[in-house]
C-alpha cells in the first residue's frame, strides 16, 4: 500500500508538548518534510530558541544546538562559518527574534550570513504565559497589556520582513501563514525556497510564518485561526519581500 502522507523521517516519534491547536506543530512538520525532500538530515544543524520551541531538539531528528535567548543567528553564524559543508537553520519565535534578539537577527541579515531562519510570529510571548511582544497587535490584550496594546504607551508592532528587506545582505524573505491547507502548502514552498538559497551558497534567507497561540490569546483553536486570517494578515501582509531573482 502506497503512503501518501506520513510523519517525516526528520521528525522523531516523540509527542509534541505544544498546546492543542498551536501552530508550532504544523511548522515543525513542514521544516522536517523539507529537510527530508532535500535530503539534508545528515548534514543539518538546527539552532533552537528560547520560547515554546525550546524543546525542538526533542522533535527534530537532526543535530541541534540550544542558543541563549535571541542569539540563534549568532550561533548559526559561528557554526556555518566553521562548518560550511553543513546545513544550518534557526527556528525562532517573535519574542526571541524580534525582542531580545533584534540586534542578532539584523546584523546576521546585514552580513548576509549563509543561513536560513524560520521565524514563528504569534504576536505574544507564549512560553512565559502571554506577555506583550514587540509584534503584539494594537488593541490586542495580553497579560501586560490587559486593556489592549496602546501605541501611546508601547509604540507600534514590528514588521520584521519589511525591515530586513532594506538590507543589501538579504537574499530571500517571505511572510506566510498556516491558517488553512492552501497556506500550509505555500509555507512549505517558501521554506524549501529559503533552504535552497543556502544550499546554493546565496546568503541569508528568512521565512516569517504567522502562527496561532490559542492558549495565550485566550481563544479556541478555531477562533485563533480567524484571528490570524482577519487580524494578523491585515497588519502583516503575506508575500515575498525579496527573492533570488531580485538580488541577482
Amino acid at each position: 500500500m502506497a503512503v501518501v502522507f506520513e510523519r517525516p523521517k526528520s521528525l522523531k516519534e516523540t509527542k509534541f508538548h505544544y498546546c492543542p491547536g498551536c501552530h508550532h506543530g504544523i511548522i515543525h512538520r513542514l521544516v522536517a518534510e523539507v529537510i527530508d525532500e532535500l535530503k539534508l538530515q545528515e548534514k543539518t544543524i538546527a539552532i533552537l530558541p528560547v520560547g515554546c520551541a525550546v524543546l525542538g531538539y526533542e522533535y527534530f531528528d537532526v543535530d541541534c544546538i540550544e542558543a541563549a535567548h535571541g542569539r540563534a543567528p549568532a550561533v548559526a553564524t559561528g557554526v556555518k562559518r566553521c562548518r560550511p559543508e553543513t546545513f544550518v537553520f534557526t527556528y525562532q519565535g517573535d519574542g526571541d527574534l524580534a525582542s531580545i534578539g533584534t540586534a542578532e537577527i539584523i546584523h546576521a541579515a546585514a552580513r548576509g550570513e549563509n543561513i536560513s531562519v524560520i521565524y514563528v510570529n504569534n504576536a505574544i510571548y507564549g512560553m512565559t504565559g502571554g506577555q506583550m511582544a514587540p509584534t503584539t497587535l494594537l488593541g490586542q490584550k495580553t497579560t501586560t497589556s490587559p486593556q489592549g496594546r496602546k501605541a501611546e504607551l508601547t509604540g507600534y508592532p514590528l514588521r520584521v520582513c519589511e525591515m530586513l528587506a532594506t538590507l543589501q545582505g538579504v537574499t530571500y524573505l517571505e511572510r506566510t501563514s498556516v491558517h488553512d491547507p492552501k497556506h500550509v502548502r505555500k509555507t512549505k514552498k517558501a521554506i524549501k525556497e529559503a533552504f535552497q538559497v543556502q544550499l546554493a551558497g546565496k546568503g541569508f534567507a528568512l521565512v516569517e510564518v504567522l502562527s496561532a497561540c490559542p492558549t495565550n490569546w485566550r481563544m479556541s483553536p478555531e477562533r485563533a485561526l480567524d484571528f490570524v486570517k482577519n487580524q494578523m494578515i491585515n497588519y502583516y501582509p503575506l508575500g515575498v519581500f525579496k527573492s533570488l531573482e531580485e538580488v541577482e
Partner: protein
Amino acid sequence: MQKRKVIFQEDLCKGCELCKIACPRGIIKMADYINTMGYHPAQLSEPEKCSGCLSCALMCPDVVIRVERGGVA
C-alpha cells in the same frame, strides 16, 4: 483514482479540531470517548465520502494523520 485511506493515530490527538474545520466534506467528528491524554480524538464519520484531499493531514499540528493509497476507504 485509487481510494485513499485516512488513518488517525488517536493517542496523539489533542482534540484541537483543526482537521475537522479543514475537511471540505465535513466528515470528521470528535469521538464521544477520550484518549489517553484526556482529549476527544478526531475520527472519520463517513470514510466512504473521503476524497483523500489531505486537508486534515496538512492542518494537524500533532502529525496524527497518515494517508495511504489503495486501501478500502
